């Protein structure tokens, strides 16, 4: 009955999940979340501690730690690191087994992931060239337009003449917003424009991963800003948001760790051990 930890070092937040396996059923015991800040390892430690205390166990009891996310190589206590794309697929598939396509709107870039019915990554497409689809971008826009992130969604629905943001580059897109403002265009119309073009960009990514009628949305900012709504009416798909969706990758990491621990003979071991050193 092993204890496992998954730590997801994201660009803005670091999340940890402590997992426990009971007769073949993984169960989440605790979760931890903290700002990533400037020191990856410290943040990872802090998040893990929080998860441990919630789970009511001590660090030595943890059998295996899997790190994922941007800072995965910076986690000193890790046994293995896996990318946040692989863990996202695994985690989403565990929480929402019907998941076939994932949209991850992260701080820095937006990703679409096609997932097999086993929870494996089939195909993925990142959009880091154009961060105009990223969470950071929406945050900035909201800040600039003097709107709180939570209200963005609501406000954008009141738009009467949406102003599309056409630029493919985040910098130019921000400029575009500023120009809209200088041109005296209403805030809600700008916000709606941002949502729509963001949904369109996501749509273009999702095309590449053969999305069907459903979509699993992860990534904190996006949810707050009410992107889900925009995606649904723009792309005409059912958008599912898993519970605690910002812990999906940490969870996926823990699950992969469990697998790694279980199947000593799997291909994973040889490859993974190559990574770990």
């Amino acid at each position, binding site marked *: 009955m092993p204890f496992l930890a998954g730590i997801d070092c994201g660009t803005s937040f670091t999340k940890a999940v402590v997992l426990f396996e009971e007769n073949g059923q993984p169960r989440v015991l605790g979760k931890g979340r903290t700002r990533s800040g400037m020191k990856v390892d410290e943040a990872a430690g802090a998040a893990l501690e929080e998860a441990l205390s919630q789970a009511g166990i001590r660090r030595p009891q943890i059998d295996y730690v899997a790190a994922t996310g941007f800072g995965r190589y910076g986690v000193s206590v890790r046994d293995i690191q896996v990318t946040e794309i692989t863990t996202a697929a695994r985690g989403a598939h565990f929480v929402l087994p019907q998941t076939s396509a994932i949209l991850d709107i992260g701080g820095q870039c937006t990703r679409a992931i096609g997932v097999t019915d086993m929870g494996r990554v089939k195909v993925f497409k990142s959009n880091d*060239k*154009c961060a105009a689809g990223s969470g950071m971008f929406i945050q900035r826009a909201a800040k600039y337009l003097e709107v709180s992130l939570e209200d963005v969604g609501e406000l954008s629905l009141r738009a009467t003449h949406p102003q599309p943001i*056409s*630029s*493919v580059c985040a910098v*130019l897109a921000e*400029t*575009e917003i500023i*120009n809209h403002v*200088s*041109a005296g265009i209403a805030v809600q119309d700008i916000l709606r424009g941002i949502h729509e073009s963001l949904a369109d960009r996501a749509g*273009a990514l999702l*095309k*590449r991963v053969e999305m069907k009628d459903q979509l699993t949305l992860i990534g904190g900012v996006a949810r707050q800003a009410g992107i889900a709504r925009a995606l649904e009416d723009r792309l005409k798909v059912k958008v599912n948001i898993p519970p605690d969706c910002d812990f999906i990758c940490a969870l996926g990491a823990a699950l992969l760790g469990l697998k790694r621990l279980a199947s000593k003979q799997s291909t994973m071991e040889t490859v993974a051990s190559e990574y770990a050193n």
Partner: protein
Amino acid sequence: MTDKKEYRGSIHQRQKDLMLAWYDQLDQAANTSNLPTVSMMISGNCVELLEGFGAVPIYPEVNALQLAIRHQSLDPILAAEDLGYAADNCAYVKADIGCILKGITPTGGKLPTPTLILCNFVGCNTYLKWFEHLAKLQQAPLYVIDVPFMRADEPSPSDVEYVVKQLHETVKKLEQLTGRKFDYDRFRQAVECSSRTEELWSQIKHLARRSPSPFDAYFDAITLMGPLYVCRARPEGVEFFEAALAELQAKADGRKGVYEQEHFRLVMEGPPPYPYFRTFRDMFAKWQACAVASTYSTVGGLWEFGFRHDPSKPFESVAMHMIAHNVTNRNFLQRYEQIRRYVEEWNADGVIIHFVKSCRLFSAGQGDMRDYFTKQLGIPTLYIESDLEDPRYFAEAQTRNRIDAFFEALEHSKAAASVRSGAWGKK
């Protein structure tokens, strides 16, 4: 209100009629298919050769720019990007491919699958990709006329010989594909027509040396370019340009300019931002700034410096046109020289360099061009960036800001000069 007086003579209407007639022919070809068509590039096109088969040219670039002017280019561009084309691929190509995928045409009529995709490579490596991909997409035969780039001031005999040989190979290829015999006389007459059209076109270009210029050699020249490429080699082309010359000549003699008062004379380098064509033109109209010459209007052929097709040696002169007398196959320094001559002989106040991200042939190195004109020649030069087809790269506020600042500065120096000389600078 923005103060512009574009001339709206009979030319615009005649131009529309000619272009529509052309699209009708293509539509016809698409339906009946006994009318051969050939896809070609505008730059250094050899439309004369097609006349020898009574074949109709298809110009993907013209389709693409028509679309952009009507603000319809983004959808096909996105369709092409869904295929995997990069954001940094030429948007002309993406728009064209997107249109074929989505069955969009400029007029709504049909466009035929070409009998032959004839890549007249003139310096633009993107043309090669474009036509290779078209051939793959449309399952149409491809032939590339490889035109040696102008690496010296004049083409070498072996350059000319090489192209002439390929022209003959093209003729053979077309005879196979069309089942028609090449009509040499008709070809020679076509070359004859071209030489006359070119003479008229050249005289029109030279009218812009008058002050005020009777037309804008950038924005208005584009209206005249369609007929120049489509029916240069036909009698109706000659008639069109006779009418155009007459009309503009009259305007010039009546000292009627594009604007009430022609305040600035400019040389324009680079293609226009078609998706914002009107907006862009207004930015200059606001300052009553008239283009008196442009490099873009010489992509199809550079005639104002004297070259003409020659019916006495038709193949050689077609070759010479493709190698040496269109701006795209001439080297970068030759373009510097062309612009320098415009500034001096067309008596311009400054140069506008419009960098378009799609076209590296035009744009790669334009920073050096700016360096040459400002630092070496001391000519006021403005450098602005956007794109010729992709609306996503046009930042209106930034562009207006730079153009306004440029004219504010130019205004000031002219005013200062006039205070010194008690008159308007050199004019």
